[in-house]
């Protein structure tokens, strides 16, 4: 039994649903789509929706629209009614078996009434008890199921899609369902389109309509009306499709009927499984999701947690994953010298013209903006929209130069090329009212890329033509800043000739303006300081033998600096470059196996897959730098070729190929784009890498706890079966009957088994290797050997001991019991002699027999006490682990009560044939309980002393077996 297959099944099911649903919807779809919004001009559009195309709706109007039209959501597929769910619990799987049993008992009783005048009422009572048990347990499991599906629901609500709308001229982030008809929406690369939209302005926009049309290639979108069919025209974007790159401003028009993609239904059909295990799984799921959510780690399903537990490689996208994701400007380099922002803010600020221009570019060629309604806060603490480095620049300029909003008002943007990973630059053209040259082109981006555009440079406000001296200084500055792990941006500008007068139609798709011979201004470097918890988390991963691979778009030097800071490259190891520098030999001559790998993206491009495998296999610490999204995919595939389970973190839309390939996708809750959140199996709400480790830990834990629970419930099978075997073989009166077996399986064992799910992690949980999902099964031969061969045997022997004690103390010595059962079961033999010559009627000796059965049941409960305590750990001593007393004591009390209650309650002797026990009989099990405890402690001691030993002696049932 594993969760492995379920993902596939779920997908198939969803696909099937999709087909069915499509059929249903074809009828609706045949109705012609009535829509003409794409044909309208902007003015017509403005009047139609009575909205101002620059400032948007007023808040009041938006509210009215929302009330009038309702929230902007797809109708969800109809959910199964609650009573159907309940009936499924009541009549499904194992419950059905119990019902059959109850009905059979009832029928048997009816037959007895028919044939005998005064039938024994055993069967009637048994059928009633069975029915009550089924009803109670299905109520419990229904409750459990409802609870866990509620958690799933809340998960959906916890990651609401956001949309950036413009209302009363302000950009506001709102939930997608609040977007109303005619709202102005701004969308950038990576966003999910929040409604059916008509584009009113667009720059380099591309959308991925694959969820709607199946076309995987991104399609470019612009404001032009290109096709009669609304599905074909370029100026419409559809709800729930993704914007891949670019930025555009749109107006939402919700009155359009478009084929809705069915929401993914979570497959709830399960194979009929043992009832108890079902309960345990439910509890584990609920507990784990809850526990992880408390640690800011949201898992979409149990499978995700489980996969994370077997993860052996984590591919980290640097950005945001283990940094604070709060870029701050650290250094600036202009006028051929470096300015340390943190120390010299006051001194350098006002005395250079270069600084003035640099600040202008930083503020204008910048798409970040402060969120509204927080003017009172200091600018460093204000929330912003836009990407991290732009926000850093924005805050920096706001603090040390002047109000950016004012600057932007004076110099409105007329054209823009947004940053993307192929360009590696961002360009904007601004209109200047107060200057002779009406337009200025500003650009920022990767320093090398910026330098390519430039032919001059700015020194103290004067332009000089580019020379080698500058280039060298530039290179050094880049290296130095990058070596500190900082992200360096280059800035340049160009005053466009006055021929580009006001109103010139700049076209960024087919460039109709000069974009070369720019003037280089300077560099600004920013750093995103690593989170303080990350080095520890990386260490913990390493001790769990999880490889942490950094895959980043950054410069190798930056990547190395960050990797060193957080311990991905450990303190005393050297890279090939370090060795080369130390030995004064060229890098190419360094033996690659001596060094920790840092692979440049361009190298990666030329590597064969064998070479990549070699790198992945031979190096413990790997950093891939300057990688493109395609290369990230290659890396993930390479890892998987080696048999690793790969977790990939990603916060950007550019990661999606790699995300799709990964075994488990971890998205960032704060910085992550909607696309990555949708694709994610797990979301880190606090964007903290350490939370991944929590997830891994939980993955190990849930596997551990399930194993413990299963071990616990399996064990009592032996003392349940052995009595019947000995009854047949030795001819002794039956030591354990059906009712008492049911009492153990459905009563006493239930809560303790579930309580094991509450068990907290053992201290060594992160020192174990990742589980190999192919080799390590939930139930393996070691667990079986342990449960059946050892603990189960001890329990059975304990039960028999109690049985013989009661028999002997009532007059039947063990030796006389052998073979007695032929006479014992004879209803008309009413003077069966015991060892003392007393003569027993059939009924009286049956009472003794049932008393023995009750005592056997109680004995199993008592030895299960010890077993429950030892099951709490698989390697650590119980004394090391410490025990969560509340749940343990509750479980023990509950199982004892369930055993004692039917024994001592008057009337149960008639109904259940369980009889009161003498106090001394409760103590028979004690030596065996102690034996279980001592035996298991010794076993754990041996395992701890010989870690990783294959231990044919001292088998470890819950040990992770070594990876091949």
């Amino acid at each position: 039994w594993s969760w492995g297959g379920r993902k596939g099944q779920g997908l198939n099911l969803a696909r099937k649903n999709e087909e069915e649903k499509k059929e249903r919807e074809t009828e609706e779809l045949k109705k012609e789509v009535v829509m003409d919004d794409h044909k309208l001009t902007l003015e017509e559009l403005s009047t139609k929706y009575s909205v101002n195309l620059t400032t948007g709706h007023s808040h009041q109007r938006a509210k009215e629209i929302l009330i009038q039209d309702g929230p902007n959501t797809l109708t969800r597929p109809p959910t199964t009614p609650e009573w159907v769910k309940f009936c499924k619990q009541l009549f499904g799987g194992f419950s059905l078996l119990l019902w059959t049993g109850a009905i059979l008992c009832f029928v048997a009783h009816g037959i007895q009434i028919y044939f005998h005048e005064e039938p024994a009422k055993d069967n009637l009572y048994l059928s009633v008890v069975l029915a009550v048990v089924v009803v109670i347990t299905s109520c419990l499991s229904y409750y459990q199921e409802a609870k866990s599906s509620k958690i799933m629901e809340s998960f959906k609500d916890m990651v609401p899609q956001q949309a950036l709308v413009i209302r009363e001229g302000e950009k506001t982030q709102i939930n997608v369902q609040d977007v109303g008809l005619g709202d102005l929406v701004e969308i950038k690369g990576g966003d999910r389109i929040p409604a059916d939209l008509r584009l009113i302005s667009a720059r380099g926009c591309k959308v991925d309509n694959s969820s709607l049309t199946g076309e995987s290639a991104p399609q470019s979108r612009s404001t032009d009306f290109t096709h009669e069919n609304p599905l074909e025209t370029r100026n419409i974007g559809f709800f729930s499709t993704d914007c891949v790159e670019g930025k555009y401003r749109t107006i939402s028009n919700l009155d359009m009927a478009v084929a809705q993609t069915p929401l993914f239904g979570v497959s709830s059909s399960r194979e009929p499984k043992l009832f108890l295990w079902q309960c345990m799984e439910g509890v584990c799921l609920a507990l784990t999701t809850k526990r992880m959510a408390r640690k800011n780690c949201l898992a979409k399903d149990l499978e995700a947690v489980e996969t994370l537990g077997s993860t052996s490689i984590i591919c980290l996208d640097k950005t945001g994953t283990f940094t604070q994701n709060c870029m701050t400007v650290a250094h600036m380099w202009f006028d051929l010298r470096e300015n340390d922002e943190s120390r010299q803010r006051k001194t350098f600020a006002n005395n250079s013209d270069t600084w003035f221009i640099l600040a202008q570019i930083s503020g204008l060629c910048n798409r970040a903006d402060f969120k509204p309604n927080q003017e009172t806060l200091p600018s460093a603490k204000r929330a912003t929209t836009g990407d991290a480095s732009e926000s850093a620049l924005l805050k920096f300029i706001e603090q040390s130069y002047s109000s950016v909003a004012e600057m932007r008002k004076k110099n409105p943007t007329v054209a823009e090329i947004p940053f993307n990973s192929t360009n590696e630059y961002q360009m904007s053209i601004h209109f200047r009212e107060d200057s002779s040259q009406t337009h200025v082109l500003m650009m920022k981006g990767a320093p090398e890329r910026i330098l390519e555009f430039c032919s001059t440079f700015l020194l103290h406000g004067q332009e000089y033509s580019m020379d080698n001296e500058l280039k060298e200084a530039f290179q050094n500055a880049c290296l130095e800043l990058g070596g500190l792990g900082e992200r360096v941006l280059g800035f340049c500008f160009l005053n466009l000739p006055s021929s580009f007068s006001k109103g010139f139609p700049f076209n960024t798709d087919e460039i109709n303006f000069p974009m070369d011979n720019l003037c280089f201004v300077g560099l600004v470097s920013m750093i995103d300081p690593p989170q303080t918890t990350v080095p520890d988390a990386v260490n913990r991963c390493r001790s769990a033998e999880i490889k942490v691979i950094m895959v980043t778009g950054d410069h190798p030097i930056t990547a190395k600096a960050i990797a060193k800071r957080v311990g991905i490259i450990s303190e005393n190891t050297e890279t090939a470059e370090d060795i080369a520098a130390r030995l004064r030999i060229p890098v190419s001559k360094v033996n690659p196996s001596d060094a920790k790998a840092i692979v440049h993206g361009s190298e990666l491009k030329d590597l064969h897959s064998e070479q990549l495998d070699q790198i992945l296999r031979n190096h413990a610490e790997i950093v891939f730098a300057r990688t493109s999204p395609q290369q990230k995919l290659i890396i993930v595939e390479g890892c998987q070729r080696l048999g690793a389970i790969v977790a990939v973190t990603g916060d950007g839309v550019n990661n999606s190929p790699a995300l799709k390939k990964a075994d488990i996708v971890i998205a960032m809750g704060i910085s992550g784009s909607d696309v990555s959140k949708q694709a994610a199996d797990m979301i880190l709400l606090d964007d903290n890498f350490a939370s991944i480790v929590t997830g891994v830990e939980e993955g190990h834990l849930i596997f551990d706890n399930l194993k413990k629970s299963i071990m616990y419930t399996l064990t009592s099978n032996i003392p349940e079966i052995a009595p019947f075997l000995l009854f047949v073989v030795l001819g002794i009166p039956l030591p354990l009957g059906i009712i008492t077996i049911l009492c153990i399986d459905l009563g006493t064992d239930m809560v303790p088994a579930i309580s094991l799910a509450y068990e907290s992690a053992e201290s060594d949980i992160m020192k174990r290797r990742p589980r190999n999902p192919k080799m390590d099964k939930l139930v393996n031969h070691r667990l079986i050997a342990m449960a059946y061969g050892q603990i189960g045997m001890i329990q059975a022997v304990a039960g028999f001991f109690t049985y013989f004690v009661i028999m002997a103390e009532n007059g039947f010595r063990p030796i006389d019991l052998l073979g007695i059962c032929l006479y014992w079961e004879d209803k008309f033999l009413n003077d069966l002699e015991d060892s003392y010559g007393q003569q027993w009627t059939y009924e009286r000796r049956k009472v003794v027999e049932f008393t023995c059965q009750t005592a056997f049941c109680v004995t199993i409960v008592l030895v299960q006490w010890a077993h429950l305590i030892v099951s709490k750990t698989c390697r650590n001593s119980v004394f090391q682990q410490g025990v969560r007393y509340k749940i343990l004591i509750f479980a023990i009390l509950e199982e004892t009560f369930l055993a004692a209650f039917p024994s001592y309650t008057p009337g149960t002797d008639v109904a259940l044939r369980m009889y009161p026990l003498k106090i001394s009989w409760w103590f028979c099990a004690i030596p065996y309980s102690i034996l279980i405890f001592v035996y298991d402690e010794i076993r754990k001691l041996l395992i701890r002393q010989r870690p990783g030993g294959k231990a044919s002696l001292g088998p470890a049932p819950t040990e992770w077996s070594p990876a091949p």
Partner: protein
Amino acid sequence: MTKNEKKSLNQFLAEWKLFIYNPTTGEFLGRTAKSWGLILLFYLVFYGFLAALFSFTMWVMLQTLNDEVPKYRDQIPSPGLMVFPKPVTALEYTFSVSDPTSYAGYIADLKKFLKPYTLEEQKNLTTCPDGALFEQKGPVYVACQFPLLLLQACSGMSDPDFGYSKGKPCILVKMNRIIGLKPEGVPRIDCVLKVGYLQPLVAVQVTLAPNSAENEVTVECKIDGSPNLKSQDDRDKFLGRVMFKITAHA
């Protein structure tokens, strides 16, 4: 997954063969001889120890037992009743007066049952006072004589056929032995012949109507006159009572 399913039968067999015995590693069923040996040794020691613990606890328990009196007697506070001869099926006696073989079994059974009660066998037993409890303090216990003559016609002394040949079959009703049972009052066994015959005796002799071809009587015997000896229990049909049926053919 699909790859596994498509494995040919030959491959499957070959894999099994390799599993059963792998000549390269010397593994038999996935383990080497040494590994199997260790496992065997482990379980030998383990079960040996378990058996020792079981034996020890049993020994301790047996030490606490008394040789004469069982530790607890509360499970049989009151004796049951049992009849002799023991019928083959349920509690029904079927015989034919004219056919001696049909009741030979009953007579043999009765004789065997009464053998310990003959004068020779009871020689060493004490004669006890009639109508009073005979209490002993030990350590040597003696048993009371039970004069067979008390059974009168059913003693087998005057009539070796116990009345079966005459259509007056004898059935002995016996009270089960319980150690330390002290009846209060004067217990007696009342038998009620459901057809209307009454004989307050431990030995019941039923006189069947001589001329009918087939006779069927049901007799119920009960302990009476002693408040601590129960004769009424919903479940236990033999607690202080017994019911049997005699069917006699001509």
